[in-house]
């Protein structure tokens, strides 16, 4: 069922119609089989790339769509209702363009952004390491300057699109300085010594590969340093605010799909001679699910509108990520409940929705870390 949305322009409306058509006709019918096989859908990314959905939130000057976050995020939400891994991939790709777009020199932007935003490339963002997850600042992969290049050694972990990406944002240690020890290099996938490992075996989102990247003396030209040396952690954290809104929208889309499936089922399924939707126990469950979905959408959009207006939105992005993903976990779990035993089988998509959402409470900052960000903001002396 199409969501009735408030949109700022006629183009935005046409864009959302396009996203809905793609989700219904191209994504949803393929999702279950690709998830089962654990296959990355390169063709689907080509299709959404050609449609112009891989650069929506960036400047038109470099080939982006010039759309506000308010619109971009709702596109992600629509796509996620069809296939979470694809929407997540677009969110990660969008994140992967951010460092160059926001911190690159004019020359770097002109050189790389048109291709990154053009729809034919897919990007990755390598911050985490096996021992450095929530505490990303403790990462230990090294980049050592050698003539006109940096030589990279170490192992990045949990890289979404690891092995299928065309380029990697690699955060490395360039000194042991606690505050300014990390730098960002934009490495091409073809760099010798940059070696993707076999993908992790995951609970869900299996069509979105997650892999370690071994850096074995990979030489990356020094003109691929984004921002100044030592600025990496600041870049990483500021990129994550937008990424968190992306995850909020993706979670909301999956929750909407679960709500739609549960509602349709409850209207059809009969027990004790009545539709189960007519039992108060079920209808209150559906009412709470619908309320959570509406609240999620309202919350991520409110944070997005702050971003679009140029206001600080870090704590609001954390609140949206925390609320939308927790709400989606509850909604998808309850959707399985509404389906009864059938919901526990792969015959219906609700068990998959539930598995897909679980990781959204974990990546791009666990929900404990989001609470920490919000709490610190509250505890800070306003003066």
């Amino acid at each position, binding site marked *: 069922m*199409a969501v009735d949305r408030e949109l700022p322009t*006629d*183009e935005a409306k*046409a*864009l959302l*119609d*396009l996203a809905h*058509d*793609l989700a219904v006709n191209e994504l949803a019918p393929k999702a279950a089989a690709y998830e089962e096989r654990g296959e990355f859908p390169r063709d689907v990314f080509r*299709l959404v790339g*050609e*449609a*112009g*959905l891989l650069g*929506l939130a960036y400047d038109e000057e470099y080939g982006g*769509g010039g759309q506000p976050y308010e619109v971009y995020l709702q596109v992600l939400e629509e796509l996620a209702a069809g296939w979470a891994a694809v929407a997540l991939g677009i969110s990660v790709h969008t994140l992967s363009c951010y460092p160059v777009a926001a911190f690159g020199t004019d020359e770097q932007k002109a050189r790389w952004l048109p291709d990154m935003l053009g729809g034919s490339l897919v990007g990755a963002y390598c911050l985490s390491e096996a021992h450095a997850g929530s505490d990303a600042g403790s990462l230990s992969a090294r980049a050592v300057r050698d003539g006109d290049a940096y030589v990279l050694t170490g192992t990045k972990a949990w890289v979404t699109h690891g092995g299928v990406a065309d380029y990697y944002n690699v955060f490395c240690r360039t000194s042991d300085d606690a505050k300014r020890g990390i730098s960002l290099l934009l490495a091409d996938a073809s760099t010798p010594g940059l070696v993707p490992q076999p993908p992790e075996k995951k609970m869900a989102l299996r069509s979105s590969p997650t892999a370690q990247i071994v850096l074995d003396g990979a030489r990356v030209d020094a003109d691929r340093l984004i921002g100044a040396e030592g600025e990496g952690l600041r870049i990483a954290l500021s990129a994550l605010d937008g990424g968190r809104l992306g995850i909020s929208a993706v979670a909301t889309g999956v929750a909407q799909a679960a709500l739609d499936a549960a509602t349709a089922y409850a209207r059809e399924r009969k027990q004790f001679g009545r539709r189960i939707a007519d039992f108060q126990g079920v209808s209150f469950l559906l009412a709470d699910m619908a309320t959570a979905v509406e609240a999620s959408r309202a919350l991520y959009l409110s944070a997005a509108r702050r971003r679009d207006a140029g206001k600080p939105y870090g704590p609001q992005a954390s609140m949206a990520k925390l609320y939308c993903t927790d709400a989606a976990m509850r909604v998808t779990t309850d959707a399985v409940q509404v389906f009864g035993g059938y919901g526990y089988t792969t015959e219906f998509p609700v068990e998959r929705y539930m598995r897909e959402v679980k990781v959204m409470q974990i990546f791009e900052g666990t929900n404990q870390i989001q609470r920490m960000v919000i709490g610190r903001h509250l505890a800070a002396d306003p003066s």
Partner: protein
Amino acid sequence: MNIVVCVKQVPDTWAEKKLSATDKTVDRESVDGVMNELDEYAVEEALRIKEASGGEVTVLTMGPDKSVETIRKALSMGADKAVHLVDAGLHGSDALATSYALAKALGTIEHDLVILGVESTDARMSVVPAMLAERLGAAQLTFARKVEVGDGTVKIERLTDTGYDVVEAPTPAVISVVEKINEPRYPSFKGIMAAKKKPLTTLTLADAGIEADKVGLGGSATTVADVAARPPKQAGQIVKDEGDGGTKLAEFLASQKFV
């Protein structure tokens, strides 16, 4: 080759279609409108012909203000310009009146080919293309599953119950297409943005030289006298095969006058 594609906005295929209680016309206000699905194939075919041999593609739509959404979609797929025939006097036009109005509007647009869908999903008369060809005095090449454009001619494969016929005619010609013909493209975001800047001409009855008493509810040759809701689906009849399954099936088909 200049091509006009006739595109109709219809109620969303999945929405429950309703008729207005007062004049028994299709209720177009209370539901979302979408481009008639077969017309997407017509637009796609026009774009492919243009991409192969040049020319311009114009979209022609007759319908209320809201139909402009459908016009925009055709423009965002790649059509060059659009003509929107919109006038309260057109409300309730039947097939004959619709074909008259479209023919008049076509008089204002230079064209070598007119491409339509074989039928709409709302009224489903499937006669507008033939009527339009007749009114224009142009060849009618209907039920096309393949179109080939030559020099001043056009050849189609006309889908039939048993296969296909090859039909060729000089241009100008009117073609209607079936869904086997192609796979319509999605608009792209660039196309959506470009559509905003493409020329869109609005025509009233007077602009198109349409006589008011030949269109609308009053100008239509047919009237919808009565409508009734479809009866609820009957429970099916299950035939158990006890060696005589074939006979039982044949008896059932005969009793329903299917054979």
